[in-house]
C-alpha cells in the first residue's frame, strides 16, 4: 500500500472534509497537514516531507497563485494540484501556466485521487531519470579521468582510420596534443614499411568482428622521429543497429622492448655464427689428425705405438662426433629446409643398414611394420638426422640382460601426417630424467659415450620439419619414441615444386 503525505491549503471545512474523504476511500495510507496562510505553509514545508500539495485557488489570506509561488521557491520535486470551482477554469489554467501540475474541479473531487497517483508516478520516473543521468554523468566523468590520466594513449577511430577521440596522453607518447590528431587519419602517421601489415591485420580483425587484436608498428612523432607502438584494439558497435562503428585502441611505447628484442636476435645470431665458424675451423685440424692416424696405422709396426694410436683415434673420433653434432645444430637452427619427395621405408632401411657394422647390431631383432608406399615431402638431411639419432640410441642402449632384444619400427599415415614409432625393450630411461632427455648436452646414461646432443638435434629437427616427438619410457622395460611429421604432399602444388627432385 502506498503512503502519501498531503499538504492541503484550504480554508473551507466542508471542502476539506470532502477532499480528505475522497482520498481515504481508496486503498492508500494518507496523511494530511492543513494550512491556511503563507506563514503556516512555509513552516509546514520546512517541517514535513510532503509527497503532494493541493491548494484551493482562492483563500482569505492567500491566493492560489501566491501559494504556488511560495511552493515553487522550495524547489521540491513533488506535484502541485490546484482546486477550482466550476466556471473558474480560466484561473486554473493560469495556475497551470505558472507551473501547477494539474487542476481538479471541486464538483469532481473524486478525480483528485487519480490525478495525484498519476502525478506521483510521473514525478517518480522523473526522479529516477535524474538519478540515472547523474550516475551516467559520474561514470562518464570517471572514464574521462581514467582516459586522460592513463600513461597509455586511448584513441577511437572510425573504420577509415580517422580519429574521433584521443586521450591527453597522446602528448607524452607522441608529442601531439589530442587536437592535433582529432579528425586526422591514423594511417598517415604510420611508418611506410609497417602500413600494409597494420592495415591487413586490422582488416582480418574486422572480418572476424570480435575479440581483441594486438599490433605493433612505428608511428611518426611530432618531432619527426618514429616510436615503436603496440596497440590493443577492440571494435565498437552502433548501439541500435549493432554495426561495427570503429575501433578503440590502447597504445603504448614499446621502443625499448623492440630495441632489446633486436639486440637479443643479434646476439643469438652471433652465437649461432660462432658455433658454426668455430666448428668449421676446428674441423680442419681434426681432419688432418684423422688423416695422420690413418697413415700411422698402416705404417707403424710397434705394438705399443699401435695401441696408443688406437686410443688417439677413439678420442679424435669422439671429437669429430661432437663437431658434427654442433654443425648439425647450426644447420637445423639456421639453415633453410630443402624439400624433396622421399620414401619413408627406404629412408628407414638405409639408416638401419648404416649400422650393420656395429657389434650391437647382430644382437637385436629388427621388427619392421612400415607401409612401403609412404611418401612424404621433407628435408632429407634433417629426417636422416632424426632417424639416425633415435635408432642409434635404441641400438646402443639395448639391454644386455635380455636375450630377446628387439627394435620395432612402425609407420603409418593418418590425416596428412605420418606417425613413426620407434620402440625397443632396452634399458629405458629413469622417469626423473625423462623431462631433460631432449635438453642440450644432457646425457641420460652413465655409460653414455655420446655428445649429449643427439636427442636435442632430434627434437629441433622434428620441430623444424613441423612435427612433434614424444617419449614413453620405463627403466629396464624399454623406450618408445613417437614422431609425427606432416606428409606435406600439398606442397607439390606450390612453387616449391622446382626444389623437388
Amino acid at each position, binding site marked *: 500500500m502506498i503512503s502519501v503525505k498531503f499538504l492541503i491549503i484550504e480554508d473551507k471545512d466542508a471542502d476539506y472534509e470532502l477532499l480528505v474523504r475522497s482520498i481515504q476511500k481508496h486503498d492508500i495510507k494518507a496523511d494530511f497537514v492543513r494550512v491556511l496562510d503563507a506563514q503556516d505553509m512555509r513552516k509546514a514545508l520546512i517541517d514535513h516531507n510532503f509527497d503532494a500539495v493541493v491548494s484551493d485557488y482562492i483563500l482569505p489570506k492567500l491566493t492560489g497563485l501566491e501559494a504556488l509561488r511560495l511552493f515553487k521557491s522550495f524547489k521540491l520535486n513533488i506535484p502541485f494540484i490546484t482546486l477550482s470551482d466550476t466556471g473558474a477554469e480560466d484561473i486554473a489554467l493560469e495556475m497551470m501556466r505558472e507551473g501547477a501540475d494539474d487542476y481538479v474541479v471541486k464538483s469532481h473531487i473524486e478525480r483528485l485521487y487519480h490525478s495525484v497517483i498519476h502525478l506521483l508516478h510521473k514525478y517518480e520516473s522523473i526522479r529516477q531519470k535524474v538519478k540515472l543521468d547523474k550516475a551516467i554523468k559520474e561514470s562518464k566523468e570517471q572514464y574521462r579521468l581514467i582516459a586522460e590520466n592513463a600513461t597509455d594513449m586511448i584513441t577511437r577511430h572510425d573504420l577509415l582510420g580517422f580519429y574521433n577521440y584521443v586521450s591527453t596522453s597522446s602528448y607524452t607518447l607522441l608529442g601531439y596534443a589530442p587536437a592535433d590528431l582529432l579528425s586526422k587519419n591514423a594511417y598517415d602517421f604510420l611508418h611506410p614499411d609497417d602500413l600494409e601489415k597494420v592495415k591487413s591485420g586490422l582488416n582480418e580483425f574486422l572480418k572476424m568482428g570480435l575479440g581483441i587484436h594486438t599490433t605493433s608498428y612505428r608511428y611518426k612523432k611530432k618531432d619527426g622521429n618514429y616510436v615503436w607502438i603496440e596497440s590493443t584494439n577492440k571494435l565498437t558497435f552502433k548501439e541500435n543497429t549493432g554495426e561495427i562503428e570503429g575501433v578503440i585502441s590502447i597504445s603504448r611505447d614499446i621502443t625499448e622492448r623492440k630495441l632489446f628484442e633486436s639486440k637479443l636476435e643479434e646476439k643469438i645470431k652471433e652465437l649461432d655464427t660462432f658455433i658454426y665458424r668455430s666448428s668449421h675451423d676446428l674441423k680442419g685440424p681434426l681432419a688432418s689428425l684423422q688423416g*695422420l692416424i690413418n697413415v700411422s696405422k698402416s705404417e707403424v709396426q710397434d705394438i705399443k705405438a699401435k695401441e696408443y694410436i688406437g686410443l688417439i683415434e677413439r678420442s679424435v673420433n669422439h671429437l669429430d662426433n661432437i663437431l658434427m653434432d654442433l654443425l648439425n645444430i647450426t644447420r637445423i637452427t639456421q639453415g633453410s629446409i630443402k624439400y624433396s619427395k622421399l620414401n619413408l621405408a627406404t629412408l628407414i632401411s638405409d639408416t638401419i643398414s648404416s649400422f650393420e657394422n656395429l657389434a650391437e647390431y647382430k644382437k637385436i631383432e629388427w621388427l619392421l611394420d612400415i607401409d612401403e608406399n609412404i611418401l612424404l615431402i621433407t628435408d632429407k638431411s634433417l629426417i636422416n638426422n632424426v632417424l639416425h639419432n633415435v635408432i642409434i640410441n635404441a641400438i646402443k642402449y639395448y639391454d644386455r640382460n635380455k636375450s630377446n632384444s628387439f627394435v620395432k619400427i612402425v609407420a603409418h599415415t593418418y590425416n596428412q601426417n605420418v606417425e613413426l614409432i620407434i620402440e625397443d625393450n632396452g634399458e629405458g630411461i629413469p622417469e626423473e630424467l625423462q623431462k631433460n632427455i631432449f635438453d642440450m648436452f644432457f646425457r641420460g646414461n652413465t655409460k653414455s659415450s655420446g655428445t649429449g646432443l643427439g636427442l636435442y638435434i632430434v627434437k629441433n629437427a622434428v620441430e623444424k620439419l613441423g612435427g612433434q616427438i614424444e617419449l614413453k619410457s620405463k627403466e629396464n622395460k624399454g623406450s618408445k619414441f613417437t614422431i609425427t611429421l606432416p606428409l606435406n604432399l600439398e606442397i607439390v602444388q606450390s612453387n616449391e615444386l622446382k626444389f623437388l627432385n
Partner: protein
Amino acid sequence: MKKYKKVMLIDDSEIDNLVNKHILSKSDIADEIQIFSLAQDALDFFTNSDENNYPQLILLDINMPIMNGFVFLQEYSKLLGDRTSKIHVFMLTSSVDPNDIRKSEDYSFVKGFISKPLSLEHLNKF
C-alpha cells in the same frame, strides 16, 4: 681406379699434403704428384708451363689463406677456358658446409666433393 700421369694437390696444410701424398703414392694412382701449398703458385704453374705438363686430376682445398679454393676455381677457369675439360677437379676439404658443396657445383669440371681425411676408398671415385 683410373691411373693418371700427374695428380696435383693444392692445399695449405703441410700435414694434409703429407697424408694425401702418402695415400696417393701408396695407391699408385699417379706417376707424379705435384703439390702446391699456395693456390697462386698453382695458377702460375698453369700460366707458365706447357700443356703437356698439366695434371689430369686436381685435388683442391677450399679454406686457404690469400687465395681460397673458390677464387682459385674462378681464376683457373678464366685462364684455361676450354682446356679445363681435360682436367678433373675434386674439392678435398674439411668443410661440410652445404653451401660450399653447392658453390663448387657451379663448375662443370669440378667432379666431386670429398671430405677430409682422404682415404683409399675415395680414390675409386676418381
